């Protein structure tokens, strides 16, 4: 067992467990907390995959911005606990059965039609692919138009959020 495998097991087990806990808690704040934990573990996995820029962006964008927004909304609205969680066990059972079925299918596909078992690259090129230089070059040359479009999307979202959430003054 080397360090990489230990870290992978640690991060993946915490990520999977926190995802399950997230969907089964009645209190939305606790759910949000476990989702943050899940995102932090994903950032750790990205570091294991040599994707350092994405790992840090994951923390800044998801944990630092999006989840704070969620927490804000939960705290300000103070919604009642989700009591429907206990009721309707039939729907719950059906959903879980369907989910497990699809998951089994996915696992079957992943293991028996191994996606790119032949395409293994060197560690060096994997490390290079995750550096900020490579990603920046790709974004500002080949993908510059999608990048600009994403900028306009964010602007539109900011204006839209203001218009939607603003109090109506009569």
């Amino acid at each position, binding site marked *: 067992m080397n360090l990489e495998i230990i870290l992978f097991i640690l991060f993946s087990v915490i990520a999977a467990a926190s995802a399950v806990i997230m969907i089964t808690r009645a209190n939305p*704040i606790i759910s949000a*907390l476990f989702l*943050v934990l899940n995102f932090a573990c994903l950032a750790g996995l990205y570091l294991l995959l040599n994707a*350092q*820029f994405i790992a*840090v*962006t994951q*923390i*800044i964008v998801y*944990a*630092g*911005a999006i989840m*704070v927004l969620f*927490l*804000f909304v939960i*705290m*300000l609205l103070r919604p009642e606990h989700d009591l429907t969680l206990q009721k309707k066990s039939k729907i719950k059972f059906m959903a879980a059965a369907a989910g497990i079925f699809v998951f089994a299918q996915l696992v079957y596909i992943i293991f028996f039609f191994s996606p790119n078992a032949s395409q293994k690259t060197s560690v060096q090129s994997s490390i290079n692919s995750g*550096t*900020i230089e490579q990603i920046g070059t790709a974004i500002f040359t080949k993908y510059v138009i999608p990048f600009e479009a994403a900028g306009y999307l964010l602007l539109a979202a900011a204006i839209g959020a203001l218009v939607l959430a603003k109090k109506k003054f009569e």
Partner: protein
Amino acid sequence: MNIWEIIVITLIKILIVFTLLLLTVSYLVYFERKISAWAQNRIGPNRTGWKGALQPFADVGKLLLKEDIVPVNASKVVHTLAPVIALFVAFTTFAVIPIGPDIKLFGYNIQLVAADVNIGILYVLALTSLGVYAITFAGWSSGSKYSLLGGIRSSAQMISYEISMGFSVAGVLLLAGSLRPYDIVYSQSGWLWNAVIQPIGFITFFVSAFAETNRLPFDLPEAEPELVGGYHTEYSSMKFASFFLAEYANMIISGALIVTLYLGGWHFPWLESFGLAPWLVVAIQILTFIFKLAFILFFFMWVRWSIPRFRYDQLMNLGWKVMFPLSLLNLVWVAIVVMYIKP
């Protein structure tokens, strides 16, 4: 150097940095009280030890012996988690800040930084963005309206000022062409520090640092006359002490960041031309870093006892209508410097 040697050296470095940080933080509280006394023409703590020098230890002892009170409608787990997050964020950020050039010790080439990461500045920004959680959780979990108001105010403030902070840092990164703190320090050797090249960015970063550390004039989250004590109204004993420690540790980190990004890190102008022995040069450089940091910390306290608190709308107006456009302007200026002036 094999992997175990690296791990042991890093652990020693972490231990040293951690101890120094804790000691400095406790003495900062002492100096804060002394400087406030100086500013208000009082004497300040002078009973415990020589001129009150043992006051920090007495304070810690007092806080340790106090009863830990958790309010009835508090959410227990989150209430405990909040100070832990605050401390974690405060102490891990220092890992990437270099305090001096490489030194040779017992045949090893040792870098004076716990982790030399080549996305170091992004790491700092990521951790500071996590700092919002501590305050938000503290405010929410206490189950008191003052705490909640303080927590919400403070997270809105921190998110707003993070933007101008990020844009000011972008100017520095553009000039250095790297995210590695070492490269940023080396890019401003001599006297051409970033504070000289981009004064506007320096000012916006400085002001944002005040807002991020919740120091006066921006200490709206704990504005005593309005909110009793803000997000840590319902905290006592060591949990309160953790918030206190985290606040002062954040101050040290912002100071160290300002020194690294804008004041040339450990660089002492024209030190090379004196022809000193190498070990003396390194010692002077480390002392230079500490002196710059001490000056920034003194400035933080000086401002605290000189300027009154902002009103909340003034704070938000300043953040969004003044600091944000100024930091954008600075970015344009740096782009012009990089394109046309710098060879």
